[in-house]
Every structure is written in C-alpha cells, then in structure tokens.
C-alpha cells in the first residue's frame, strides 16, 4: 500500500531520519545496536529518541536488570505512518526533478 506523500519536518533532520528509517525496517531494535549502526553516542541517541518519543513516533521498553538490562526501541503506528508519508514525499520530489530533467533534454 502506497502512502500519501507528506513532508515531516520532525523526521527529516538527518539523524532522526536515520533512526526512524532503521526502526521502520524492524519490529524493534536494541538501543546499543541502533547507536552503533548510526555511529552515535549514548547521549545523542537518547536525546533524539526522547524527541521522537514525545512526538509519539517511538516507544521505549526496558527489560532485564543489572548487566542484562536491555532497551528496545520500537516505531509506533503513528511513527510508521509518518515515515511512510515522508519517504513518499521524498520520492515524489526526486521523481518530479527527474521528470523535469528528462523534459529539458
């Protein structure tokens, strides 16, 4: 099902876009995996996750205790819809530019 294109300023910031894109490919991802994959520090990722959580795009679940403590990040249904719409908006912009280039040649 294709999403209705809708640009999302909150998601489009490069770091947040990478976080949301990674989470969109998953049911959930571990905090440390997300941090390592995106080359971020704990504090930088925590800050961005807090912003996304406030917007209702991401949910955070902590499990275990002590050394086995894990933090799972999950994209909410709202976040998934917003990401699909944002990605569709980006594709639309690129397609329009490509069409204009082709017409100019």
């Amino acid at each position, binding site marked *: 099902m294709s999403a209705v294109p809708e*640009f999302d300023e909150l998601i*489009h910031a*490069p770091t947040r*876009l*990478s*976080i949301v*894109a*990674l989470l*969109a*490919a*998953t*049911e*959930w*991802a*571990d905090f*440390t*995996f997300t941090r390592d*994959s*995106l080359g971020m520090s704990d504090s930088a990722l925590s800050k961005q996750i807090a912003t996304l959580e406030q917007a209702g795009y991401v949910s955070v679940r902590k*499990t*275990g205790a002590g050394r*086995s403590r*894990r933090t799972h990040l999950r994209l909410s249904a709202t976040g998934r819809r917003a990401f699909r719409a944002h*990605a569709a908006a*980006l*594709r639309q*912009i*690129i397609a329009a*530019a490509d069409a204009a280039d082709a017409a100019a040649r």
Partner: protein
Amino acid sequence: MDTDDARAGMAGIEAAQGQAVREAASWRWPRWYLAATAALMLGTAIAMDVGQDPALLILAYCCSVSLLQIPLTARMRVRLHRSRVTFGVNWPLAALLVAVAGVYVLARVALDAAGAPAPSTLAGLLMAGAYAAGLPLAQRMTARRLVAAS
C-alpha cells in the same frame, strides 16, 4: 527543500535500513539453541518408545520449543519488520522443518516394518541429526534471500 536534500534523505534511509537487514542476516542461532532443540526432538522420540501419550509429548515439545524462544530473543539485537520476513525469504527454514518431520515419519515407518527395537528412538536420532545438519544451510539460504530482497 531541494532535490539534493531529498536524494540525501533517501540515501540515508536506504543506508540505515541496510544496517538492520545486514544485522538480521548475520544472526545465527546459537549452538545451545540448536543442541536444546535437537535434544527435545530426541527426548520426545525416546519417550514415545517408552509408551508415553504421544499427544501429551507433542504438547510438551511445542511448549518447550516456545520457552526456548525467550532466551533466544534476549540475545537478538534486532527483529526485522514482518513485511521483510516473508515466506519468500523464510522458505528454507520452513522446508527444513517439513524435511525433518518427513525424516522421522519415514524412518519410523521403515523401522517399524523391519521390526527394529526402539524404532522411535532410532528415528528420533535421524531426525535430530537431520535438523542439526540442515539448520546452518537453511540459515545461510535465508540470509542470502533476505539481503537480496532488501
């Protein structure tokens, strides 16, 4: 927003999603899980020879395999979205389970017909061996298909 910005955004999306897919594709079932599952198969097969209720044993086997998922999930760093884990990607694992069940049934029928002692135990040994031998291959095939599909 300009086109370059949009292209950079799409490239960022693909790169981030590629990381998740590569992580999932590199996941291998730990040896303890393989050993525990094979042991459950064999244990169930032996119990059938001893004369336990097959329905109860199958129930106990299914519950035990489900319980094994708990420590298994705790070791995973990422679980891919269901839209990426399609039958087209996962069929080698499904085929392995069907093949393993087939090994048990055929071996059991053949051993019963031959009048072998403890036919279920022997068939269970073959089944557990087939599972242990086939799982790494099925995993590799699944991983290749996962990466190719992304």
